[in-house]
């Protein structure tokens, strides 16, 4: 690995470890460990959310998807961005008002029971782990390509870093690493975009002409349909993306890190502005790659298109810019996986250990130790998993997490907050049906059952790559039917609950 790369790489590692050291001295209580003591401002939290959300898959994958397929790649970006409206309008503030550390807290605020806690904890845990593993695998491959380290070393480095950040620095370290990553990512993407424009002397028409010249699609490049072959895929993908974010535990728990509803709104708005700007810039980068590098050379370098951004950086700015972009990609990976580790840790240590196993009777010190040990265990196990999955195509796990989040978590969250007749049994049935539907449709679909390179070498029984359009309604229906068939005895008055969820005010009723 040449010296420039090494230098950037070491810089990032040292900076993040300094952040962790600073955070460690302020992570002595569970309040600090799990939620940064609610001290982040709306804008800081917004930057952290953006940092948590934009993964290397977005940065590299979407630039590549746009470079290869044009319009359809941009559709991914749109889905990711629009999903923040769902979060803003329906779930962000209620989650902040109802829960303390985890998603389980939110649902248990209405249905206090171990059953519900189990199911929310397991759901959050599974989603976080399933999201994390493809990130680790992809990052291992990426770091190997860019920094010339072998896969095992790369995964070990990223795995150890993410574990150190969370064990010692908790949510504070995680948030600030994410904030730093956002700043670095946005500035480097902005820089690259400017370079792309200046390369074509700020003549957009020239750029667009060169794009058409650089791809076998020619004039047709800008037409939709190159990646998502039929309208059902398009709609299914779009809906899954729009609804998915509002069910992702690692994003939702970030609303505990600020102190009131106004800051929650600011967080989501800031995140959506950053994410929106980012995706517009990746559009520029994607088109730039098609124009400067061209389709053929890109496919030869990497058939998934993931090397588009680094190749573009190298073509426009030589080795130095490539090293810079690689370092950014690396920071992007660690920031996201750290967020996932703390999300899985919260589910395990707060919901399972503290509430269920220990029945809520542990001291502060015990809770903190449990959280730190959980983070260590989770980091270790995910790293080992990723090491074992080196040659396996795990990209389907990414679509899985969004679909599972939208079909099992989201219905439960929405109905808990808004539907009076929702019942505990309905919640369980909804969660299970969403999970089962997503998993089975994915296993029966072309990701896994693929005659060429699937895990099961047969024709797929279910034809959509994105089963969201079927799985998500099943999840919602399961929750609805379950509640209507098995209405529960309300332990919590819905009116009071609704007001608490929307405003944070606890009203004492019975005086009317």
């Amino acid at each position: 690995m040449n010296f420039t790369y090494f230098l950037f790489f070491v810089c990032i590692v040292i900076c993040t470890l300094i952040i962790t050291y600073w955070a460690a001295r302020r992570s002595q209580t569970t309040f600090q460990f799990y939620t940064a003591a609610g001290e982040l401002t709306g804008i800081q939290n917004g930057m952290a959310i953006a940092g948590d959300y934009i993964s290397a898959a977005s940065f590299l994958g979407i630039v590549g998807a746009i470079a290869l397929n044009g319009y359809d790649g941009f559709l991914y970006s749109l889905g990711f961005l629009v999903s923040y409206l769902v979060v803003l309008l329906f779930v962000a503030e209620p989650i902040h008002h109802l829960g303390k550390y985890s998603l389980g807290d939110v649902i248990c605020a209405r249905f206090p029971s171990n059953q519900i806690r189990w199911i929310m904890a397991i759901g959050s845990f599974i989603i976080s782990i399933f999201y994390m593993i493809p990130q680790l695998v992809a990052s291992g491959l990426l770091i190997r390509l860019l920094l010339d380290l072998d896969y095992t070393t790369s995964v070990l480095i990223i795995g150890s870093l993410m574990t150190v950040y969370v064990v010692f620095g908790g949510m504070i370290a995680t948030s600030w690493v994410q904030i730093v990553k956002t700043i670095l990512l946005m500035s480097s993407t902005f820089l690259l975009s400017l370079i792309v424009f200046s390369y074509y002397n700020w003549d957009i028409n020239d750029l667009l002409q060169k794009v058409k010249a650089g791809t076998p699609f020619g004039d047709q490049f800008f037409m939709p349909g190159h990646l998502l072959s039929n309208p059902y895929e398009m709609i299914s993908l779009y809906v899954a993306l729009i609804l998915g974010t509002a069910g992702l535990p690692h994003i939702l728990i970030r609303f505990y890190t600020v102190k009131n509803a106004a800051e929650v709104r600011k967080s989501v708005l800031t995140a959506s502005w950053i994410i929106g700007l980012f995706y517009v810039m990746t559009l520029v980068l994607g088109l730039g790659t098609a124009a400067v590098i061209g389709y053929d050379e890109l496919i030869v370098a990497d058939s998934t298109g993931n090397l588009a951004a680094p190749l573009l950086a190298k073509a426009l700015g030589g080795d130095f810019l490539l090293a810079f972009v690689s370092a950014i990609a690396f920071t992007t990976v660690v920031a996201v996986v750290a967020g996932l580790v703390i999300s899985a840790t919260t589910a395990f240590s707060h919901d399972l250990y503290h509430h269920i196993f220990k029945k809520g009777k542990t001291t502060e010190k015990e809770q903190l130790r449990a959280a730190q040990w959980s983070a260590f265990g989770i980091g270790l196990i995910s790293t080992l998993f990723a090491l074992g999955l080196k040659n396996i195509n795990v990209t389907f796990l990414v679509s899985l997490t969004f679909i599972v989040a939208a079909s099992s978590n989201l219905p439960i969250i929405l109905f808990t907050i808004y539907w009076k007749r929702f019942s505990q049994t309905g919640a369980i049935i909804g969660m299970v049906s969403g999970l089962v539907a997503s998993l089975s449709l994915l296993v029966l679909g072309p990701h896994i059952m693929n005659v060429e390179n699937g895990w099961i070498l047969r024709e797929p029984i279910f034809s959509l790559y994105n089963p969201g359009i079927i799985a998500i309604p099943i999840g919602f229906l399961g929750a609805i039917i379950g509640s209507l068939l098995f209405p529960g005895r309300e332990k919590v008055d819905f009116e009071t609950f609704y007001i608490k969820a929307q405003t944070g005010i606890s009203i004492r009723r019975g005086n009317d």
Partner: protein
Amino acid sequence: MDAILKWKKERRLFLIWLTILSIIFYLSLPIALAIIPEWMNASPIGSITWAWIYAFLQVIMTWIIGWIYWIKAKQLDKLVAQIKQEASE
């Protein structure tokens, strides 16, 4: 209790309208791509097609809707403060 009812009604009305309009606006993109592809691929300005214009509009609308929500939420916050006052009396 008056403030609570007023707040609930205003909020509910606002959210329902905003949601319906948003759903129509956002879902029309993939549906339009499916049903009227020829129209979506027509280019009114240079080589930029309606499909791309609509896509960019979705980005801008997201920011606008977010901003509308922010303003309305601030208004509703005043009602919430009233509720808080009544609750502590």
